[in-house]
């Protein structure tokens, strides 16, 4: 280990956070022709890996850790990207252009990217610290949950968002008794229309999950330090051997806040991933983007991390490569694939295309007559076409969408 107060090493480009976004910054810097030193620093022990399968294929036992890796170690060598794992960036000295690591090392930088991601929002109720209560963010978390699901009889999932519902589906696949407790009156309420929420409540119930809506969790109960039950505001007690909470995330903006960068529940960036310091960019879950004069928003998705990563690399090299594509996201639950593109908030009309009864349909969201988002259930072509329609801002009417004889792909060309 290097001694504390060592002289700063390297210079060049430094990336804090070795997840989806950080890796993209490092790779894109090379792809953009940067030849200087690149250091990618991550506090997890694994090299960067795909997180989405954690709640899906990994919990279902379909993939191993090694298969989740995004790049192999020789890739980093070939690209001359120095990957430091198991070490945290603990502070940034913007005046000196130096980052300090928690093992005592210091690195100077010409350009810095913050890609520190997010952490799970802790349950704000008594008992949250009991054994057998889990959040899901990392590979280690997923292994702990997997082991708990092996041993548990009854699993209670708190939060009916994507992660909670994917975990519920995986737990059912393992034959566990599963209850989902959601505080809102419907599932995935923040992002999808009531129509889609209802579809998913039915889907989970048809697989034997007890979906309880409007359920305010007030306490977790335990015995000998281990969770035994979840209690809701109406006094109901749900026995549980394992509890998985998926109630949202908190952006890891602490480093940026401490360094005096503009933050508002996330590091504020523009379309080019630039922060309020011209030498520092930020990408992915730790950011809040201000664009088109619209309200600041945080997107928690692979696409966002990747596209902002490309934008950040360009910005660090003094180029502008704004990320303006429509956001997209997917979720796999049982054999049902949900693919979403655009942001549906503020819609004033929805049109359904396809057949909910056959579990193949898309919901098209309109605002002031303009298409703003599409949620597709087992209809990949609608999603892929929709990305083109939204990216190119092709005018599409509700009537066209409602009419199955209208070829959307033809409109997108």
């Amino acid at each position, binding site marked *: 280990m290097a001694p504390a107060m060592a002289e700063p090493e390297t210079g060049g480009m430094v990336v804090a956070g070795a997840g989806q976004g950080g890796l993209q910054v490092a790779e894109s810097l090379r792809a953009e022709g940067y030849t200087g030193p690149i250091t990618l620093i991550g506090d997890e022990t694994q090299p960067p890996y*795909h*997180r*989405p*399968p954690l709640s*899906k*294929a990994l919990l279902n036992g379909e*993939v191993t850790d090694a*298969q*989740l*890796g*995004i*790049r*192999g170690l*020789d*890739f980093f060598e*070939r*690209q001359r990207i120095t990957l430091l794992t198991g070490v945290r960036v603990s502070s940034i000295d913007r005046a000196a252009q130096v980052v300090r690591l928690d093992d005592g090392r210091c690195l100077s930088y010409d350009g810095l990217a913050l890609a520190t991601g997010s952490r799970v929002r802790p349950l704000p109720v008594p008992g949250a610290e009991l054994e057998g209560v889990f959040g899901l963010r990392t590979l280690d978390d997923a292994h702990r949950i997997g082991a708990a699901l092996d041993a548990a009889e009854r699993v209670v999932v708190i939060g009916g968002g994507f992660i909670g519902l994917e975990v519920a589906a995986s737990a059912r696949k393992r034959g566990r008794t599963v209850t989902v407790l959601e505080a809102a009156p419907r599932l995935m309420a923040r992002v999808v229309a009531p129509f889609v929420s209802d579809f998913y409540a039915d889907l989970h119930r048809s697989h034997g999950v007890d979906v309880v809506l409007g359920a305010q969790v007030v306490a977790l109960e335990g015995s000998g330090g281990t969770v035994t039950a979840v209690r809701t505001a109406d006094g109901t007690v749900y026995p549980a051997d394992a509890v998985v909470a998926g109630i949202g995330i908190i952006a890891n903006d602490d480093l940026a806040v401490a360094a005096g960068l503009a933050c508002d529940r996330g590091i504020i960036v523009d379309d080019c991933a630039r922060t309020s310091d011209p030498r520092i960019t930020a990408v992915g879950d730790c950011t809040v983007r201000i664009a088109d004069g619209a309200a600041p928003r945080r997107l928690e998705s*692979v*696409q966002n991390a*990747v596209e902002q990563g490309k934008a950040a690399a360009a910005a660090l090299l003094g180029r502008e490569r704004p990320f303006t594509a429509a956001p997209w996201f*997917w979720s*796999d639950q049982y054999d049902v*694939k949900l*693919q979403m593109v655009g942001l549906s908030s503020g819609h004033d009309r929805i049109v359904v295309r396809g057949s909910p009864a056959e579990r193949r349909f898309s919901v098209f969201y309109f605002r002031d007559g303009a298409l703003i988002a599409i949620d597709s259930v*087992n*209809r*990949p*072509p609608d999603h*892929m*076409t929709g990305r083109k329609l939204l990216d190119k801002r092709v005018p599409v009417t509700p009537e066209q969408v409602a009419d199955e004889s209208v070829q959307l*792909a033809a409109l997108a060309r």
Partner: protein
Amino acid sequence: MAKITFISHDGAEQVVEIPTGWTVMQGAVQNGVDGIEGECGGSCACATCHCYVDETFAGTLPAPSQTEEEMLECTSSERKPNSRLSCQIKVTPELDGMTLHLPETQS
């Protein structure tokens, strides 16, 4: 293990050994094969792992699922009869020696 050859759109060749049970996409991205992105991590949700399978093997692979079939309708480069999503091809020893041609663009 199977040795799989990737031929990029401009003719560059890269041979990669991929363990049995992995998907072709997983082997390609970990080895940094240019032209396979694999953005969704293999969920059959992004179509950035499109490839063309050489004739001798195209027939021996299990047929694509309906989801893969429908995603293939929407690839950014031309869809051909031998188009596949490489995240849906599981490596078996029988695939040793397979050649895959990569499309011009993935997104």
